[in-house]
């Protein structure tokens, strides 16, 4: 985060960068699977500090990007119903569906409210008893427990007009699908620090045991990320593969069991469709029968338009790390942040948006 940092930061960064260069002598590709990492890496200009032969590529870590059009189309269909208030994280507002977006609907009068916490939508529900409040539940394991907690709180408060349109996804199954598909050579993985704060270390052991890929759980400051890449470099340099935890001040080996318990009470595992990857078994969450009255799709009828994916959009391949944004013909031309075609461009953490906004892989400022 921007504040008045000292020379110590520069020197520590220099240390990591030169060690990474020393330890890795062949071209390698490291993948980060957390949209927050994608943004942090771009904002800090980290690619520019890494040697050219260390390629840092983004995976499917942006929950907004991996959510297919039909989710947005459903949310939009709901927002057009007169008695519905949509409560959503800001991230969803500009994402394009097949023919509209929540922002566009808002401009024509739909009641769509940005919330910071799912609990805020409970306040909206209590204040508007004649309306149906639908919270858009997206996110990975960091955020899903907060939605589950909101359901429990709604149950406790006796709220009958609160619903969640769920599209939560789980990271480890997506990693498994990616590595199994083996489309892209991955020499090391930067794992999402805050997802790990919830799930702990155990769900990642298959990365090493079954695929032999070095993996480091990483925090989010620029130095956290550099240190994590340094730890990967050490493993790669030694020809080893293990799971390490750079973010030990937050991530405990067992994660947060209380949060997982809350999640398990409300949600069970389900199959989920990931944009660009298809259906990954067990990679999503579905509300348990005893809570289904809070599930929007189960409780509220809706007419959704036929879902169309944008022609020429290569978000799927970008999300799998197969192509760079610049390989897509639409990038920077028909698809720009102010007129995005695909979710990778509209989401703040989308690879394409970050690439465009922060100047691409190695934006060199010749000053």
């Amino acid at each position, binding site marked *: *985060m*921007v*504040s*008045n*940092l*000292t020379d110590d*930061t*520069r020197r520590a*960064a*220099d240390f990591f*960068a030169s060690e990474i260069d020393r330890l890795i002598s062949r071209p390698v590709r490291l993948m980060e699977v957390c*949209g*927050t990492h994608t943004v942090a890496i*771009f*904002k*800090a*200009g*980290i*690619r*520019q*500090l890494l040697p050219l032969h260390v390629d840092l590529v983004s995976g499917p870590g*942006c*929950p*907004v990007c991996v959510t297919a059009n039909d989710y947005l189309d459903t949310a939009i269909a709901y927002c057009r119903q007169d008695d519905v208030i949509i409560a959503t*994280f*800001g*991230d969803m*507002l*500009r994402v394009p569906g097949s023919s509209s977006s929540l*922002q*566009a609907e808002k*401009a*024509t009068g739909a009641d769509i409210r*940005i*919330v*910071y916490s799912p609990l*805020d939508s409970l306040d909206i529900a209590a204040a508007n008893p004649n309306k149906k409040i639908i919270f858009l539940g*997206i*996110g990975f394991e960091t*955020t899903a427990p907060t939605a589950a907690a909101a359901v429990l709180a709604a149950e406790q408060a006796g709220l009958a007009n609160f619903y969640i349109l769920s599209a939560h996804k789980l990271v480890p199954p997506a990693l498994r699908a990616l590595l199994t598909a083996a489309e892209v050579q991955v020499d090391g993985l930067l794992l999402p620090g805050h997802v790990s704060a919830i799930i702990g270390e155990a769900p990642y052991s298959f990365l090493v045991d079954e695929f032999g890929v070095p993996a480091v759980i990483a925090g989010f400051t*620029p*130095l956290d990320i*550099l240190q994590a890449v340094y730890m990967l470099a050490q493993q790669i340099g030694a020809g080893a593969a293990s799971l390490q935890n750079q973010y030990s001040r937050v991530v405990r080996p067992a994660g947060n069991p209380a949060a997982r318990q809350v999640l398990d009470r409300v949600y069970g595992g389900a199959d989920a469709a990931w944009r660009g990857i298809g259906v990954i078994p067990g990679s999503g969450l579905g509300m348990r029968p005893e809570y289904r009255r809070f599930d929007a799709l189960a409780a509220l009828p809706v007419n959704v338009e036929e879902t169309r994916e944008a022609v020429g959009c290569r978000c799927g391949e970008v999300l799998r790390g197969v192509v760079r944004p610049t390989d897509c013909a639409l990038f920077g031309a028909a698809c720009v*942040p*102010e007129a995005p075609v695909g979710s990778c461009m509209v*989401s*703040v*953490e989308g690879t394409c948006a970050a690439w*465009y*906004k*922060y*100047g*691409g892989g190695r*934006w*060199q*400022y*010749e*000053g």
Partner: protein
Amino acid sequence: MKGERVQLAHGSGGKLSHDLVSKVMLPAFANEALAELHDGAKVNIRGTRLAFTTDSYVVKPLFFAGGDIGKLAVCGTVNDLAMTGAVPLYLSAGFILEEGFPLDDLSLIVASMKAAAAEAGVLVVTGDTKVVEKGAADGIFINTAGIGAVIEGTDISPARVRPGQDIILSGAIGDHAVAVMAGRYDLVLPQTVASDCAPLAGMVRQMLAAVPSVAMLRDPTRGGLATTLNEIAVQAGVGIRVEEAAIPIHPEVAAVCNILGFDPLYLANEGKCLIIVETKHTQQVLTCIQSHPYGKEARVIGKTTASPAGQVGLHTAVGGVRLLDMLVGDQLPRIC
């Protein structure tokens, strides 16, 4: 643009705002004075150089820590005139009031305007008041226009920005935007967070008296520091390189940004200015401004360069360099 509708984001000062103006207004009104697209226009009336500017104020909430819409309306226009290298002299004030708006609030707002005008040394010499039906305006909208006398010997213009000049920022960024956000998302801000809304004409006048050769002045309002730097880079045809570690940000402001996922470089400021000046004068400008209450935290934050022209690069705290783009729409809080 046919068939499209105005979105809220068109008003946020970033790319969409620029698009709207350049596609709809500029072609219609095209003329030399307008073409400079600086904060105020410099016009010549029978040999006297005047600066002329206008701004409309629609801020919500109307009252916030450190000010209100009235103070904003006076300071904003005063500052635009100051950014043109002028001594602000006269303002107009147009009010659009919503039926039902409390007269007590109106009195408070007008009193704020009076105080700000007095501090800035300007007179409100003409005005207008309209009332619209309930629901047609958000309580109150204010437009102010202002005239000032361009200070002899100064020529503030993007055309005078050259590579190799220093860029000075007069103080910490983000305070106004965060103060206005207080209460939203249930954040409780400490007393120390207040809008930086202030009339800068006095400070600017002192500085221009000491260093009349200042090339450029601009206040980073809507769209924030990043957007304003981009505008300058494009208009002046230079590159700009900013040092992340040099940009002053108060910890409470950084905290709100961290919580909501905002980038302080894109948040509006109402009492700050950017000064671009030849390096041989940098220390003089700093000394002058730092001795003024509104410039105590002033710092050099970067330089202009020859290339890449029209682009702004940020040298980050860890030593990377990356593009610092303009604001596209408006910033939304995010969880991801």
